[in-house]
Each structure stands twice: as structure tokens, then as C-alpha cells.
């Protein structure tokens, strides 16, 4: 039975970072819904505006505030919260709750933690306590010692008796700072890093179980001590590779029932001993030879794995965990999927689920691609099939990495062996290539430490490739290939034909996919929740309701840099708007972490790759009336033109902006023509097919220029080059320009202010949802830039001109739905940078800041309801408060990425600061993003000549506030001349003390203001300082605007207590 509470709080996980992605939006949203339906007044707090859980109606009060203990405490007091669900916001929320328990805030305000208690959290998180508890119940854990120093670490290794050892920092996310040491030197290096990252400066030195098999169990326990296993999962990669980095299948495929039951029983013993209430994840290592096992880790909360398990089984772990937290037992909660059974049962699967991580190495080419105990992937995909091969191949094409099957990678033999021996993201391709080159599966399995069972599955795929290449196509062969998961395009590649021809041929043969249901019970009961996957067999279970209009929304696929949770937010809002309008919403997506793939969001969910074939198959099955391609980011936009072609003559229309008009925006030549016609300025540009041509263009339009290859999208490999030498390097080494691969060259508007505009248009009216001024100058990718809504330095006249341009472009492109524009302002002129005829990354941010649900408005426009009819018409939403978007970056996890912001996007997620004035909002955004703005101490300033006057006022403010200002000679001279007291230090390149690096390490410099200079010494200095700043987590500002905003924020924060505001306070 449920317990009485006055008000409950759900804490989110903050911005998307490596190791903490969209899964906590999924779990947090489920939790909110789950407790709201029980009638509890609910408060939600999260700093991430791109989430569904921060929608104004997801809780009674929604706070977008920094996830800091003091802020949470303020909300607790303001709202009168008396219970907190700690386990829904990942490690972030759990750590916050531990902190609130430790600092006495919970006790002070009479707040209870629901579900798992602080002692239980401590017991599972603190390695030493965990080990003791496990030893008490006789469950084996790897031999280990917790240490607080490198000397202690060495002693620990002596006790364990051998290298390698694992180093695991306590209380960090996704294994940050951990590693494997094979010798003493490595031990020292990794320990130093690990100790620094750990919140309690503690790392664990542990016996290595490298090469053992890794299994995971998702367990639930309720207050009556009932325990069930939701799902078990098998990591294809052996111990030594983080489970977030491994290909994983569910259920376990190579485990006997006897061993499965041993691990199941152990999981239950563990969850009982720890006293966890709700969902929990238990990880095991199992020696395939002796069948000995070790307990590796317990996560006393919902997790990435529980999100995967929820999607893999259909069992809503977060929802049920929330019910348990408020006092229900498992048998009191109905199973929504079957509708007639309860939550106390164990799901039975009758399919194979494969999860593959999505890594950002396509973006970060300098990062070490080797996989280990630290997470590097930003997201993942899940694929479902009736056999492993099918699930794996569907998974590969879901990744959107430009490869649709296990395509040969042209490794040299030596490279191939390297890839096999040391795992990278390319491991499965290397295995395929090794098989093609005649290596035996056993040999390969031995090297890669996989069960040969899985290598043989890849061999089956390779054998089918061979058959397709050599045999005459027959119905039987086609059917066999399709059953194995081969895409039409793959069959086309292998047989030298076009994908469309293969598709037509197989349809002639009557070979079309059937859709099976994910029902938690392997068909034992009739299920009511429509969650489907495609396969080739008989007996299609998806029966569209032909009475209603049906619209398909194409999702955004895996979370990656450049395409984050924002697009999932838009998809979910699309679904809601369709349903509000009485239209059945059909969702296609393959990201197991997200809300859009929650089974009770859409009317029908298809868990599928987002290729033309897979999407068309669903559309044809559904006989859909329409398709929405504007919401799934570049994934869905890229399908628009092909989809339209394929759907010609069918009942299915692409809703909203015509794909041909979308193409105008995407095609540079067509777009330039339109801009000329409309009299809108664009930076000069050209296309170069050789270095000579590129050089001529650059000279004609003048350096600096923005360069990028024509064949990649989304800012990949985009750079600003300042001179001919740099251009030569870029052209000849970085992108290898050729006749087929020209580069695009744009005039770079130096020190221009960039503005993002998001709007909805219906062909007649244009409603501008918001204009966001970037704090950094144009040239920083808009996904990385700090943005301010509304603009904070621009004149009314400029804003009017931007409105007009937005309106003109939207009408000229006949936009029906959403569009995003990127404009630049320089010398009083407005320039067009680009137009994106789709929902953008900033749509959720604007919606949260203004209260206008842009994606919903856009959806209704696509359904034919005009802006006027919706009560908007033409216009621009004015607000009298400020919202600041700040980005978070993976520099700590991805060693080797320069932290300077460039046209290439590097951030993984975003936060929002919202308050009545700009500086407070900015301050909140900064601290929410993890930039620890100092309240006292030292600030180092070294800026280029143009910026010197710009930062003068800020330097003065800093000294007024009692900061010590350190500066290099040039800056120092200028500041002193203007009456600001400074301490002069050497430039890093001068190699003398004191210099910035030393002072940073000594803790004397707590913030750095460094704007780039063209002098090569200064650029190198900047690079070195940025690296140290990242390591020591010192705020590093690279623009004068950013610096001024930060100083303003410090002044405001020093001046008064921060207050907290719910979103409703701003919308009223």
C-alpha cells in the first residue's frame, strides 16, 4: 500500500554527458508519471532543458535549476517536500542525495529518501563496505583494497600478488578516471588521476578478472522483500571493457540454466543484503573455464542498463521502481503491457536483443579509439531480431556510421591483428575481415576473448555474403538473407544492383517483413501494448487501426555529438500533438535510452533502424497518411527526398515543408540563389576541387575562411583557417581534397555575433519562438555556444531586421512546420549563415524558457491547422526574464581533444539557467554546466589587442571584488595604464616562473580569460593552459563577451543569495 507524503521530489541527472545519457530522462519521466498517477503532488528538478521530464506539465512544479545541494535544499524548503526519489537521476541524483543526507539537510527539513536508503547507497557505492557486506553473505568479490594514496596502492598490489590490476575511483560516473595497470608506472599514473576524480579521494585496487565473461542482472525488490529478475544480459566483450562500451545481447545466450540460476540467486541475495528497494543492476564476471564467478558491481538505482532492460523486455523498471518507492509491492502493481497480469513476474523474451554503443570517434579523430574500463561512447542503439545475426545487422545499420553491414575495412594484416588484440569501435568489422581472410572462428575468439559462439554468428553472415555474391538469386536465397537481417542495400551491394531493384524483386517474391510484438511474456498472454519489431516470418501482429488517421514520426537514432536528446524531445512532442489532434502517432526509433521509445508514448512503437528500407516497410505496413521528417534531426531530414520519391503515388504524404524546399535549404547553390533573390547577405563562398582552387577562392574572399569537406554534414571536420599554410595542411592532409571530394570555403566573419532563430511557419504566417544570441563569437558551433534568450546586446533595429529576414526566408521556402536559422551580425549588418528546415537543438530550450511548445505547434501546422487558428499568427514571443543555455564537454573523458571551441561541435549536452536578470541566469547556467565560477582568488587574463578595451571593465570589477588579477606583459601594461592593479607573470612559452601553468597548479588561478591570438607562441600557450584548466576544472573563457558575462555573474552571485523559481513562475 502506498505511504502518505505531502509532496515528492524527483531529481534528474542534469546534462547529457558520457556515461549519463538520455536514459535518465526516460526513467525520470516514467517516475514522475508513476507517482503523479498516485495523486502525489510532485516536484521535478533538473538542469537539462532538453528533457521531457522538465516539461511544465510533467510535475506540479518543474525547476530548471543547477543540480547543487544548496539549490535542492532551497527547493525543498520552498515547496515543502517531504520525500525524494533518489534513484531516478543516475549517479548525479544519488550523489546529491548522499550529500543532502550527510550535510543534515534531509533531517533538518524532515525529508525521507524513498526506496533505497542512504545506508544502502553507501553500502553499494563504497567499495570497502560493499566488499564487507558480500563477504558476510559468502558472495565472492575480486580481491581488492581501497586506497587513498599511491603508496597505499602499491601495497595493495603486493597483497593481490600480481599485475594487471584494475583501478576504480569511488563515486564517479561511467568509470571516469579508472583504468587497468600492467606495471607500477601505469599504476602511479592511473591512481593519480583516479584519486583526483573521486569525490572522496578514494580508489579501489582490484584483482583482475580480465578475459572472464561479463553478465548483468537487472533485479527488482519491493518493501515486502519480493525479488524478481527483469532481464539478464551478456556482454560480448570480456571483462576489461566497460559494459557501456561493449556489444551486449539479451537474454544471455551462452549460459546454462544452472549457471544462470546461480547468478540469479546471487543477485537476489545481494539486493536483499543491501536492502535496495526498486530496480538495481548487478554485474558479474564468470570464468568460462572454472565457472567461478565474482560480483563486480551493483548500481542501487535505475541505470543505462535498466533502460536497456526495460526496452529489451517491455518491463517498465523505472515506473515500477517509483511505485515501490512510495510503498507498493510488486503484486499490487498491474502489468500495463498485458493489462491482465501484475508486475510480480519475470519477463520471458522470444527474440534476441543486441545493443551496440555509438562512439564519437567520427567527430574526434585525434582521440584514442581503444576501448577499456572508461566509457567513451555517447549513446547506443538497440535492435531486436528473431536471431542474433538479424539483430546484429539491424543494429549496425541503426548506428548511422556510414556503414550498413559488416563492410570490409581494408585493414592491413598488421592493423587487423591490432584491432583484434586491442578492441576499438571497429572490433566487429575486424572480426568479419579476419573471417574473410580465412582465420578460423576459434582462433579469432581466442584473440578477442569472445565466446566463439558469437564469432560463428558473424561467420554465418560472412558466408551469406559469399553466397549472395556467387549464387543465382532465388526466392529461397532471398528469404534466407532477409531472415538473417540483410538489408536490401546490402544485398544490392553484394550483387551489384540497386537497393530499389532488390526491394522490388523481393516484394515480387512476396518477401516482406512481419512485425512481432514485445509483450514481456513470449506470447503466453494476449498483450495490449503495441510495441513491435520487424522480422521475416509469418504471422504479423501489428494491425493498424484503419479507422483513424495515422502519422509516422521518424526518430533521431542514437545520441551522438551533434544529435542529442533535443530531437527525441521534439519527436515526443510531435507524438503528443498528433494524439491531441485525434491522429494515431506511430513512432520509429532505435535508441533504447529515450522517452520516444517508451512503449506507452506513441500509439504504436516500431523499434527499427532508420534507413529508407526499414522506414518504408513500416509506412507501408501502417498505410500511413503522413510522415513527419522534421523531428529526428539530420537522421530523418536525410531521408526526406528519398522517402518522397519512394512514396510518390501512395496515400502517404510527407507532412510539412516540401522535401524539395527542404533541399533548397540544404543545397548551397540553390540556397545562395534564393538569398540573392531575397536580398539577404551571405558570407562569400566557393567550392574548391584542388589546393590551387581553394587557395584562389580564399584569396578572393580573404582570410580567415571557414573550410569543410562537402561530403560530411553537421560541422564535421569544419575549421577556420587563417593563412595559406594552414589551408594547405587542411587540404592536403586533413581532408584529402579531390575531384570527388571538394571542399567548401566560406568567408569567416571575424568577431561577428551569432544568433539562432527558431520559428514555426504555415505558409502564410511566421511565428518566431525565440532568438538566441551567442555569447561566443560566430565560428563556435551553435551546439557548443553559450546562448542567451532574449538577445542581450543587440539593438531593437537589428532584432527587427532579423525578424524580417526570418519571415522572408520562411515564406520563400514555404516552410510548414519548424525552421532554424543561424544569422551573424557584424558591423551593423545581418548575414545568413544557414537555414535548417527542421526542428533544431534549441527547440526544447526555447519551449522551456517561453512556455510555448514549438514542436507541438509545428505538428499541428503540419496537420493543416494554421498558426492563426492555433492562436499564434505571425509574431515574436517577447519575454521579460532571461534564459541562458550552456554546454558541457567530454574533455575530461576524451583525452586528446582540444578544449577550444571551434566550428566543429564537441559538447555532449546542455543546461539552462533561468532567472529574472541576465547575470543571475548566466551564473546558474555556468554552475549547472560544472563551471565553478570562483567567488574569490585569482584570475588570469591574457587577451589579444582588440579585446583589451573590451575586458577592461571586467578586470576592474574583479579587483574591486578583491580578486588578484594576473596578466601577461601586454595585457598587464594595458590594464595598469587604465588604473587596474595587476600581477605580471611570464607567458608559458617564456619558460620562466611564475607563469600561468604553475599558478594554476598551485591553486592561485581560479579562472582564466584567454582570447585567441594569431601569434603562434600565444596559440601554443593557450592550448597548454586549456589542457591544464580541463584537468583542474578551472573555468576557461575564450571570448571577451564570455569573460564579461562571467564576471557580471560572479558579481551578482557575490552580492546576494540565489533564489529558485519554478517554470510556472516565468510563464505566468
Amino acid at each position, binding site marked *: 500500500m502506498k505511504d502518505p507524503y505531502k509532496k515528492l521530489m524527483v531529481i534528474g541527472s542534469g546534462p547529457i554527458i558520457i556515461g549519463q545519457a538520455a536514459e535518465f530522462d526516460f526513467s525520470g519521466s516514467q517516475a514522475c508519471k508513476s507517482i503523479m498517477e498516485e495523486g502525489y503532488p510532485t516536484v521535478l528538478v533538473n538542469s537539462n532543458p532538453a528533457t521531457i521530464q522538465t516539461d511544465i506539465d510533467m510535475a506540479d512544479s518543474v525547476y530548471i535549476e543547477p543540480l547543487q545541494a544548496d539549490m535542492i535544499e532551497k527547493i525543498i524548503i520552498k515547496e515543502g517536500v517531504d520525500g525524494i526519489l533518489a534513484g531516478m537521476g543516475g549517479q548525479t541524483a544519488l550523489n546529491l542525495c548522499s550529500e543532502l543526507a550527510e550535510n543534515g539537510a534531509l533531517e533538518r527539513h524532515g525529508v525521507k529518501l524513498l526506496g533505497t536508503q542512504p545506508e544502502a547507497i553507501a553500502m553499494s557505492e563504497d567499495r570497502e563496505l560493499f566488499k564487507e557486506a558480500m563477504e558476510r553473505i559468502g558472495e565472492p568479490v575480486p580481491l581488492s583494497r581501497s586506497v587513498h594514496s599511491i603508496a597505499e596502492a602499491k601495497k595493495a598490489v603486493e597483497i593481490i600478488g600480481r599485475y594487471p590490476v584494475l583501478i576504480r575511483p569511488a563515486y564517479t560516473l561511467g568509470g571516469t578516471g579508472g583504468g587497468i595497470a600492467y606495471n607500477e608506472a601505469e599504476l602511479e599514473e592511473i591512481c593519480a588521476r583516479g584519486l583526483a576524480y573521486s569525490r572522496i579521494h578514494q580508489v579501489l585496487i582490484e584483482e583482475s578478472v580480465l578475459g572472464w565473461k561479463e553478465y548483468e542482472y537487472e533485479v527488482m525488490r519491493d518493501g515486502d522483500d519480493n525479488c524478481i529478475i527483469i532481464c539478464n544480459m551478456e556482454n560480448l566483450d570480456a571483462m576489461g571493457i566497460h559494459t557501456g562500451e561493449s556489444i551486449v545481447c539479451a537474454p544471455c545466450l551462452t549460459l546454462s540454466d544452472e549457471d544462470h540460476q546461480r547468478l540469479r540467486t546471487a543477485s537476489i541475495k545481494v539486493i536483499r543484503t543491501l536492502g535496495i528497494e526498486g530496480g538495481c543492476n548487478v554485474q558479474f564476471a564468470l570464468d568460462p573455464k572454472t565457472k567461478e564467478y565474482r560480483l563486480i558491481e551493483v548500481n542501487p538505482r535505475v541505470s543505462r542498463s535498466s533502460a536497456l532492460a526495460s526496452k529489451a523486455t517491455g518491463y517498465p523498471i523505472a515506473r515500477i521502481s517509483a511505485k515501490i518507492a512510495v510503498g507498493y509491492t510488486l503484486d499490487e502493481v498491474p502489468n500495463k503491457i498485458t493489462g491482465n497480469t501484475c508486475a510480480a513476474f519475470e519477463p*520471458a523474451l522470444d527474440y534476441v536483443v543486441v545493443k551496440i554503443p555509438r562512439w564519437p570517434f567520427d567527430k574526434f579523430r585525434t582521440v584514442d579509439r581503444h576501448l577499456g574500463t572508461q566509457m567513451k561512447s555517447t549513446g547506443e542503439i538497440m535492435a531486436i531480431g528473431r536471431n542474433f545475426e538479424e539483430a546484429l545487422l539491424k543494429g549496425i545499420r541503426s548506428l548511422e556510421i556510414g556503414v550498413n553491414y559488416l563492410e570490409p575495412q581494408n585493414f592491413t594484416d598488421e592493423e587487423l591483428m591490432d584491432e583484434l588484440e586491442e578492441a576499438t569501435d571497429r572490433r566487429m568489422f575486424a572480426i568479419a575481415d579476419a573471417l574473410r581472410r580465412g582465420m578460423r572462428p576459434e582462433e579469432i575468439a581466442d584473440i578477442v576473448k569472445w565466446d566463439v*559462439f558469437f564469432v560463428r554468428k558473424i561467420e554465418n553472415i560472412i558466408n551469406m555474403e559469399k553466397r549472395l555474391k556467387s549464387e543465382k538469386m532465388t526466392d529461397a536465397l532471398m528469404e534466407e538473407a532477409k531472415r538473417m537481417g540483410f538489408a536490401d542495400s546490402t544485398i544490392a551491394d553484394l550483387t551489384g544492383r540497386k537497393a530499389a531493384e532488390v526491394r522490388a524483386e523481393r516484394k515480387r517474391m512476396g518477401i516482406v517483413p512481419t512485425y512481432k510484438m514485445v509483450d514481456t511474456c513470449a506470447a503466453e498472454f*494476449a498483450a495490449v501494448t503495441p510495441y513491435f519489431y520487424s522480422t521475416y516470418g509469418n504471422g504479423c501482429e501489428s494491425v493498424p487501426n484503419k479507422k483513424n488517421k495515422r502519422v509516422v514520426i521518424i526518430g533521431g537514432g542514437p545520441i551522438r555529438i551533434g544529435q542529442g536528446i533535443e530531437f527525441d524531445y521534439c519527436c515526443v512532442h510531435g507524438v503528443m500533438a498528433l494524439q491531441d489532434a485525434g491522429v494515431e502517432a506511430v513512432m520509429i526509433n532505435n535508441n533504447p535510452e529515450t522517452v520516444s521509445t517508451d512503449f506507452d508514448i506513441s500509439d504504436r512503437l516500431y523499434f527499427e533502424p532508420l534507413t529508407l528500407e526499414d522506414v518504408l516497410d513500416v509506412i507501408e505496413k501502417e498505410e500511413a497518411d503522413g510522415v513527419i521528417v522534421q523531428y529526428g534531426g539530420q537522421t530523418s531530414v536525410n531521408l526526406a527526398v528519398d522517402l518522397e520519391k519512394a512514396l510518390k503515388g501512395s496515400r502517404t504524404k510527407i507532412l510539412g515543408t516540401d522535401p524539395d524546399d527542404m533541399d533548397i535549404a540544404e543545397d548551397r547553390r540553390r540556397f545562395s540563389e534564393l538569398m540573392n533573390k531575397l536580398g539577404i547577405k551571405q558570407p562569400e563562398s566557393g567550392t574548391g576541387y584542388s589546393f590551387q582552387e581553394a587557395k584562389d577562392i580564399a584569396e578572393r574572399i580573404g582570410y580567415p575562411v571557414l573550410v569543410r569537406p562537402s561530403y560530411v554534414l553537421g560541422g564535421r571536420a569544419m575549421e577556420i583557417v587563417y593563412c595559406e599554410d594552414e589551408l594547405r595542411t587542411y587540404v592536403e592532409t586533413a581532408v584529402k581534397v579531390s575531384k570527388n571530394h571538394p571542399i567548401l570555403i566560406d568567408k569567416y566573419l571575424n568577431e561577428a555575433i551569432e544568433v539562432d532563430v527558431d520559428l514555426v511557419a504555415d505558409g502564410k504566417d511566421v511565428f518566431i519562438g525565440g532568438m538566441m544570441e551567442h555569447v561566443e563569437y560566430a565560428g563556435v558551433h551553435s551546439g557548443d555556444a553559450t546562448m542567451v534568450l532574449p538577445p542581450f546586446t543587440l539593438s531593437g533595429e537589428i532584432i527587427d531586421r532579423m525578424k524580417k529576414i526570418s519571415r522572408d526566408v520562411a515564406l520563400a521556402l514555404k516552410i510548414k512546420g519548424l525552421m532554424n536559422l543561424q544569422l551573424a551580425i557584424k558591423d551593423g549588418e545581418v548575414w545568413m549563415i544557414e537555414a535548417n528546415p527542421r526542428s533544431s537543438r534549441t527547440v526544447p530550450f526555447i519551449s522551456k524558457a517561453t512556455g510555448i511548445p514549438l514542436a507541438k505547434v509545428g505538428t499541428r501546422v503540419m496537420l493543416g491547422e494554421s498558426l492563426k487558428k492555433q492562436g499564434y499568427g505571425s509574431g515574436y514571443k517577447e519575454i521579460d526574464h532571461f534564459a541562458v543555455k550552456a554546454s558541457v564537454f567530454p574533455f575530461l573523458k576524451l583525452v586528446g581533444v582540444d578544449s577550444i571551441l571551434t566550428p566543429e561541435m564537441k559538447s555532449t549536452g546542455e543546461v539552462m539557467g533561468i532567472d529574472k536578470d541576465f547575470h543571475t541566469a548566466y551564473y546558474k547556467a555556468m554552475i549547472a554546466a560544472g563551471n565553478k565560477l570562483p567567488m574569490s582568488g585569482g584570475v588570469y587574463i591574457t587577451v589579444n589587442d582588440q579585446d583589451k578595451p573590451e575586458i577592461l571593465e571586467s578586470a576592474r570589477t574583479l579587483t574591486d571584488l578583491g580578486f588578484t588579477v594576473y596578466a601577461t606583459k601586454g595585457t598587464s601594461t594595458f590594464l595598469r595604464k587604465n588604473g587596474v592593479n595587476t600581477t605580471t607573470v611570464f607567458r608559458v612559452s617564456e619558460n620562466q616562473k611564475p607563469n600561468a601553468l604553475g599558478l594554476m597548479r598551485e591553486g592561485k588561478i581560479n579562472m582564466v580569460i584567454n582570447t585567441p591570438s594569431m601569434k603562434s607562441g600565444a596559440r601554443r600557450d593557450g592550448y597548454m593552459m586549456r589542457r591544464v584548466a580541463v584537468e583542474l576544472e578551472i573555468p576557461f573563457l575564450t571570448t571577451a563577451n564570455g569573460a564579461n558575462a562571467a564576471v557580471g555573474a560572479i558579481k551578482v552571485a557575490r552580492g546576494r543569495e540565489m533564489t529558485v523559481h519554478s517554470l510556472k513562475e516565468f510563464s505566468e
Partner: protein
Amino acid sequence: MSSRYLVLEDGTVLKGKGFGHDRASYGEVVFSTGMGGYQEGLTDPSFCGQILVFSYPLIGNYGIKKEFNQSDAGAQVSGVVVSEYCDVPSPMYGGEPLGNLLEESKVPGISGIDTRSLVIKIRNSGTLRGAIVSDEESIPETLEQLRSKPLPSDSNLVSRVSCKKGTYTDSGKDITVGILDCGVKRSIVSELSSRFNVRTFPFDSTAQEITDSKIDGLLISNGPGNPAHPDLMRTSVRTISDLSSVMPLMGICFGSQIIALALGGSTYKMKFGHRGSNQPVRFDGRVYITSQNHGYAVDAESLEGTDLTVNQVNLNDGTVEGVIHRDLPVFTTQYHPESSPGPKDTVFLFDRFGKMMEGKI
């Protein structure tokens, strides 16, 4: 691999590939939703007379190991139906393929079947009679036979799987338990023999024979077919009726039904039964996940006026999962506390039975 056909009494013919032994076979087609433990399932004597469909699509992945067998006689099913059969398994457990077991036990298998569709068919229509044949031309004839032949459970299947002669294993324990062997699984024997000395009795042993052997209590085992078969009413059921007030009794699955019949209750055939490792049971205010394999159940209403009460129920459909005697040390479970395959959540019941035999409960 050659083609093979699964023929169902409703006229459905599914074409697949053969594995295991090549012979025509006939049985009741039932499905199990267990995701692992295929070997334990196939060798469970309770499946005698049945063609087993695995709803999990990949079967044979980790091969077979002798220790997993639930019967010395190898596979007990009449046939196996799978989506995908793995003939080169993971080497984890030695790498011997499942096909070898079926070959030795002369059981045919068929793969390449859309087992989910088949499960849905059985769910909707109830258990069907079916046959596995290799000869396409024999299908019409097979179909005719299917419709006219009696159900396997119309015959006394227990007599096929019960031991012919009793055995005794002395493990030096204080307590000796008897097993009325209606087709007992090896894991029941090993759960018992790790705690007690074990004496087994053929299903048709008389009460006198059992009391003469000086045991402390009797477990009535799992077994195949209809518990209310006339042959069983005359033998096992009568024996238990006579013994109920003489010694502690524990009934598992089929044994639970025998006890219910012996004490005045009745049983019925379920539409498609419970077969799998995920059935939730409410017992003493708690929920246990149990392993099950039964097509018959005890009729709860029939227990009115008897000395038995239902103390365990299935959370999904409310069917009887266990009964207990009002006064005597007699209890049953419709599920399998010995698991194999399945969860070990209720293995403590063997200790409870031990306490009863010691006279402590």
C-alpha cells in the same frame, strides 16, 4: 539438412528443417516460455507424450552436458520444435550439440519454425495434437491419423516413465524419505538425497509396501499425463489416500494433483497449461517466481468439504499452486521447487518437508 514437417490436427502444416533423430513422431503440442534450460526440459519425464515447442528462438546454444539430464533415459519428449537450432554450440560446457541427445533418445526435432506464431495458435486454440514427419507424401495420412488417434494422455503415461523396481540410497542421514516415482526428475532426487536417505517406489506401489519400508515421509513426484487416469485412480491415488494419515506427504506438480485426488478433490485439463520459469505464485503473503510444467490443475472448488485448503495461487490466472492439509503434515506445490530448469526461490520447501518428517512441524 532435410526438410521436416510439423502437422497439426487443425490442418496446419509447417515446413522446417530436421535435426535430431529422423523418425515420424506424434504427441500433444505444448509450448514452454523458459529462455534457457532446454536440456532439463527435454529430459523431464513429465513431457512424455508431448511435442515441445520452445518459444525462445535460439535453442542449443551452449550444447548439452550429461549432468543437466533430468532422466537417465535421456530425452523424454516425443519431438522438439524450435525456431533456430544451434548445431555448433559454445564450448562453455564441452561443446556437445543437443542433436546428439535427441539422436540417442530417438527424438526428432524440427527447426526453422516461426515458433511465436505457433505459440499464439496454441494459446488461442488450446493444446493441439501434432506430428513431426519427414515424408511430405505422408502428410494427408498423418493428418487423418491425428484426428482419429486417441490423445497420448488417454493412456497411462506414468507407467512408461516410473521405475519398475524401487531403489534405496543411504547417505548416512537420520531421515529417510520415500519417492513415489511417477516420472521423477533427477533434480528432485538430488535435492532430497542431499538432505535424506532416499527410497524410491514404483507408481503402483501399495500403501502396505510403502509403510513396510519404514520411511519417514513420502514425496509424490512430477509425472506426465492425466492424474485422474483410471489406472492411476486405482494405484497411486488409492495408495496416497491410505497413507495421508500415516506419514508426512509432499507433492510436486503431478504429485500435487495425486494428493488432491486422494483426499477428495478433482483435477481438470487446462487450455494450454503452464510451462516456463517465470510463473509468479503467492504464498504466505509473498511472491515467488517458480518453474512450472503442467497441463492439468487442481480444481479449487472441488476441495470444498475436503481437508485440503489452497494456500498458494498463481498470480497470473488464480489457479491452484499448492494445497495444505488442515491437520496433517501434507502439502503440495503445483510448481517445481527443485527447479532445473528455473529459479531456486522455493527450494526451502524441501527443508520444510524435512522438519515435518522430524515431527517438528
